[in-house]
C-alpha cells in the first residue's frame, strides 16, 4: 500500500506544472553553482599550489645573505583549497588566503576574497551548499504544504481512510513519493558533483586522502536535513486548517531557519562573546612586547639580563669574547618571548571565536540549518577548525624556520659582526618545505559531534512528527 501511495504521489507531482518549473530552475541553479564552484576551486587551487612552489624557489634562490635577513624574507603560506569547496566554500571568502611567515611576527592572514567584491556579494554566493540549504527545503515545502490539506479540502481524505489505509502508511507513502520527486532534482547534481571530484583526482590528486568519507558525511548531513523538512512539512500539512495556513506556517519556519536565525545567531554570538578590534589586538600585542607580559620584564631589561646570563655562562666579560653570536642569541630570545605573547593573545582570541561558534551551533536547536552548516563546512574542510589547523601549522613552520636561521647565526658564526655572517643556499635548503597535512576525518568527526547530534535530534523529531500525528488521523477525525 505504501508503494502504491508513493507511486501515485510521485506521478501527481511530476504532472504538476509548478514542480516542473521550480525543479527545472533549481536544478539549473544547482548545476550552475557546481560548475562555477568547480571552476573557482580548480583555478584557486592551482594558483595557490603554483604560488607555494614559487615561494620555495624564491626561498632557495634568495642568494647569499645573513640568516636573519633570510628569516625576514620568509615565505608566504597559501591556504589550500580542498575539492569539496566546490560544493561548500564555507568561510573561505572571509578568511585571508595567505599569511606571511617571517621573523618576529605572527602575521594575520591577508587578502580576504570578500574584500575584492561588492556589496551585492553579501546577498549570498550562488553555491551548491546555499542552493541545498535554502532552495531545496523550499521545493519540499512547495510539494508538501498541501499534501494532506488538499486531500481534506477535496474531501478525498475520508475516502482514503475509509478504504482501510493506515494513517502511518499513508504518510510514509506521501513522504516517499515526495522524496522521489526531490531526488529527481538532486541526482543529476550529485552525479555532476561526483564527476567534478573525480576530475580533481585525475588532474592533480585530491587534497583530502579521506575524501570519500568526507563526501559521505556531507551527503548524509544534507539527506538528514531534507528528511527533517519532509517530516515537518508533512506534519504541518496534516494539522493545518487550510492549504493557505499550512503554507504560511511552513514559510515562516523556512524564513526563521534560513534567514533570521543565522544572522541573529551571529550578532548574538558577537554580543555574548565580544572580541577586540584589530587595532586593540595589535596594540595589546605591541604593549606586551614593549612592557613584558603582565607588565614585567620590559624589553631593555630582558636584553640586559640576557647579556649577564651569557657572560656568566661562558665566563667572559665582553660580547666579543663570547663563543656564540650574541645577536643570534638575542634574536632567538626575542622570538621565544614574542612566541609566548602570540600564544597568549591568539589563544585568547581563538577561544572567543570558538565560544561564538559553539553558541551559534546551539541555535541549531531552533534552526536545523545551523547544525547542517557546521557539518557541511566541516566535511568540506572549509570551516573554522580547518582554518585554525592550517594557521597553527603555518605558525609552527615559521617558528622552526626562524629558529634554524638563528641557530645558524648563534653556533656557526665566525664573527659578532652582522655583515660578516653570510650564508648560502645550503642553509636555505636545510629548512624543509612547508608541506601542510590537513586533519583526518577522525578529528573532523570529533569537532562536528555537537552539531551532528543536534541534526540527529532534528532528524528523529522531524521524522517522528508526522507519524505521531498519524495516530490521531482516522477517517472519522476532523484531521
Amino acid at each position: 500500500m505504501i508503494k502504491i501511495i508513493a507511486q501515485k504521489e510521485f506521478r501527481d507531482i511530476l504532472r504538476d506544472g509548478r514542480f516542473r518549473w521550480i525543479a527545472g530552475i533549481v536544478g539549473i541553479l544547482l548545476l550552475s553553482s557546481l560548475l562555477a564552484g568547480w571552476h573557482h576551486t580548480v583555478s584557486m587551487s592551482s594558483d595557490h599550489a603554483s604560488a607555494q612552489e614559487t615561494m620555495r624557489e624564491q626561498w632557495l634562490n634568495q642568494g647569499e645573505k645573513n640568516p636573519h635577513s633570510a628569516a625576514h624574507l620568509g615565505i608566504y603560506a597559501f591556504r589550500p583549497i580542498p575539492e569539496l569547496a566546490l560544493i561548500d566554500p564555507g568561510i573561505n571568502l572571509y578568511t585571508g588566503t595567505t599569511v606571511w611567515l617571517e621573523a618576529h611576527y605572527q602575521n594575520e592572514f591577508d587578502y580576504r576574497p570578500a574584500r575584492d567584491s561588492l556589496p551585492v556579494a553579501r546577498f549570498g554566493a550562488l553555491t551548491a551548499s546555499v542552493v541545498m540549504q535554502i532552495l531545496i527545503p523550499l521545493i519540499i515545502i512547495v510539494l508538501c504544504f498541501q499534501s494532506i490539506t488538499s486531500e481534506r479540502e477535496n474531501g478525498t481524505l475520508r475516502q482514503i481512510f475509509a478504504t482501510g489505509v493506515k494513517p502511518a502508511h499513508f504518510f510514509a507513502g506521501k513522504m516517499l513519493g515526495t522524496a522521489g520527486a526531490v531526488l529527481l532534482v538532486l541526482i543529476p547534481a550529485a552525479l555532476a558533483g561526483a564527476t567534478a571530484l573525480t576530475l580533481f583526482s585525475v588532474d592533480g590528486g585530491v587534497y583530502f586522502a579521506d575524501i570519500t568519507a568526507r563526501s559521505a558525511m556531507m551527503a548524509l548531513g544534507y539527506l538528514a536535513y531534507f528528511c527533517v523538512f519532509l517530516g515537518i512539512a508533512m506534519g504541518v500539512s496534516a494539522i493545518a486548517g487550510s492549504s493557505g495556513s499550512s503554507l504560511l506556517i511552513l514559510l515562516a519556519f523556512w524564513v526563521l531557519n534560513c534567514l533570521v536565525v543565522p544572522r541573529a545567531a551571529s550578532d548574538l554570538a558577537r554580543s555574548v562573546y565580544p572580541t577586540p578590534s584589530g587595532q586593540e589586538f595589535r596594540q595589546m600585542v605591541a604593549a606586551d612586547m614593549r612592557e613584558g607580559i603582565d607588565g614585567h620584564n620590559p624589553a631593555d631589561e630582558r636584553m640586559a639580563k640576557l647579556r649577564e646570563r651569557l657572560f656568566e655562562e661562558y665566563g667572559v666579560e665582553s660580547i666579543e669574547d663570547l663563543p656564540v653570536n650574541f645577536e643570534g642569541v638575542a634574536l632567538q630570545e626575542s622570538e621565544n618571548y614574542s612566541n609566548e605573547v602570540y600564544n597568549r593573545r591568539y589563544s585568547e582570541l581563538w577561544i572567543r571565536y570558538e565560544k561564538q561558534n559553539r553558541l551559534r551551533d546551539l541555535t541549531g536547536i531552533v534552526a536545523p540549518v545551523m547544525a547542517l552548516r557546521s557539518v557541511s563546512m566541516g566535511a568540506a574542510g572549509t570551516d573554522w577548525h580547518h582554518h585554525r589547523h592550517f594557521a597553527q601549522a603555518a605558525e609552527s613552520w615559521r617558528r622552526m624556520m626562524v629558529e634554524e636561521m638563528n641557530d645558524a647565526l648563534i653556533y656557526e658564526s665566525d664573527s659578532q659582526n652582522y655583515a660578516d655572517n653570510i650564508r648560502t643556499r645550503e642553509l636555505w635548503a636545510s629548512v624543509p618545505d612547508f608541506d601542510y597535512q590537513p586533519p583526518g576525518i577522525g578529528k573532523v568527526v570529533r569537532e562536528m559531534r555537537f552539531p551532528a547530534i543536534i541534526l540527529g535530534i532534528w532528524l528523529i523529531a522531524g521524522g517522528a512528527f508526522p507519524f505521531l500525528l498519524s495516530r490521531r488521523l482516522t477517517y472519522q477525525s476532523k484531521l
Partner: protein
Amino acid sequence: MSLINYEWKLLRSGYGFNVAIIVLAAAGFYGVWNGVSWSQFQEMAIDTALEEEIRTYSELRETAEQAAVDKAADSYAMNPGLVGLFYSRPAAMPPAALAATSIGQSDVYPYLFDVTAHRKDDFLHQEEMDNPNNLLLGRFDLAFVVVYLVPLFIIALTFNIVSGERERTTWPLLLSQPVSVYRLIGLKLLLRGSAVGGLLLLFLVAVLLLRGEGVSLSLLMVWSGSAALYILFWLILSFAVNVRKGSSAANGLILISCWIVWVFVIPACIQMAASTLHPVPPRSTLIEETRQVETEVRVDPAGLLEDWYEENPEMRPENFDPDMYNFPLFWMAIQEESARLLEPLASEYDRALESQYHFVNSARLLSPAVLMQDILNELAGSGYPRYRHFINQVDRFHREHIDYFKTRTYAHQQLRASEYDDLPRFEYEEEPVYRPVKRALAAAAGMAGWSLILFLAGLPFIRRLQSLE
C-alpha cells in the same frame, strides 16, 4: 474616514496582523541596536588608534628633545627615515551619520589603516578582525529588516486580500457594498503598507535618537522616501498577483517565488556574472611579483639613490657615501622603486573592482532588493563609492607622508622635536551630501520603474475584481 476606521478595526481584530507587527517591531529594533553597536565599535577602534598615535608621537617628541639635549645625533626619534617608515599614522574613516541603518560592507572594507612610508600595499591589506563565520552569515541590521523581512511581512499581510474574501465567501457581500471594490482593495493595501511604513519610520527615529548627530534632512527624506517606494513596490506586486484571482495558496506561492528570485537568485547571479566577466586577478600573482621585484630592487639601492640625486642635485647631501650602508635611506629607496614597478599590477585590482562596480550598477536594475540595499548602503556610507572616496584620500595622504619624510631622509636632515607638530596627519573629508543622495535617487528611480511596470501588468486584470467568481 469611517471606512478606514472599519478596515483598521477589522485588521487589528485578527491575531495574525498583531503578531506580525510585534515580530517586525522586535526585528527592527534589534536591527537598530546591532547597527548602533557596530558604529560604536568602529568609533572605539578609531579612538584607540588616535590615542595610540598621540602616545607614540609624544614619546617620539620627548625622545627627540632629550636627544637634542644629550647631543645624540643618531637617536631614532631624530631620524626621519626611521620615523617615517616604522611609526605609523592612522588614516580613519569614521562611520557616517546614518551608518547604524546599514552595516553594508563596512565590516569587510577596512575603515582604518596604519600608514607608513612603506609601499601602499604594505598597509592596505590591513583588515578588521572578526570571526569569519560571523562575516559569512551577515548582519542583522535595519537594512536586513527592510530589504529581506519587510517584503515577507507585506506578503503575509496581503497575499490573500482578495482570495481570502473569496474563500470565506464574503466576496459577493463586498461587491454588494456601496463602495468601489477598487477603493476597498486599495485601502486594504494602503493600511497594511502604512502600518509597516510607520514602523520603519519609528526605527529611523530610534537611530536618530541614539546617533542623530550631523544627519542632514536630505538623507532622512531620501531614506524615508525610498523605504516608502520599496513598500509600495511589494504592495503593487501583491495587488498584481491578487487581481489574478487565484487561491490564497497560489498567491502566496507566487509572491514568495518572486521574493526568492529578487532577493536571492538574481543578486547571486549578478555577483556571479560580475566576478566572471570582470575577475579580480589572484592575489597570489601580486605576492609573487612583489617578492620578485623587491629581490631585484634590493640589489643596488645605492644606485637608485644616485639616480634620484642626479634628478634632484640640490637634495644631495655633501656626505653621501654610496658604499656606506644606511638602512632607512636604502629601505626608503627600495620602497619607492618597487612601488613604481608594481603600480601597473596593483592598479589591475582596482580596475577589476571598478569594472565590477559599473557592471553591477547596471545589472542591479533587475532586482528591487539590490536597488534598495544599494540605497541604504549609500545613505549609510557603507557601500563601495564611499570606500573608494576614503581610499583615494589615503592614497593622497600616503604620498604626502612619503614626500615629507623622503625629502628629509634623502637630504640627510634630522627631525627636530619642534617639527613633530608639523608632521602630516590624516584628516578625513566626508563626501558632500548631494553625492550619496544622487546615487541613492538613481537607484530609487529604478525601483519606481519596477512599481510602474507591475502596476501596468496588473491593470488588464483589474476588471476581474468586479466579477463575483
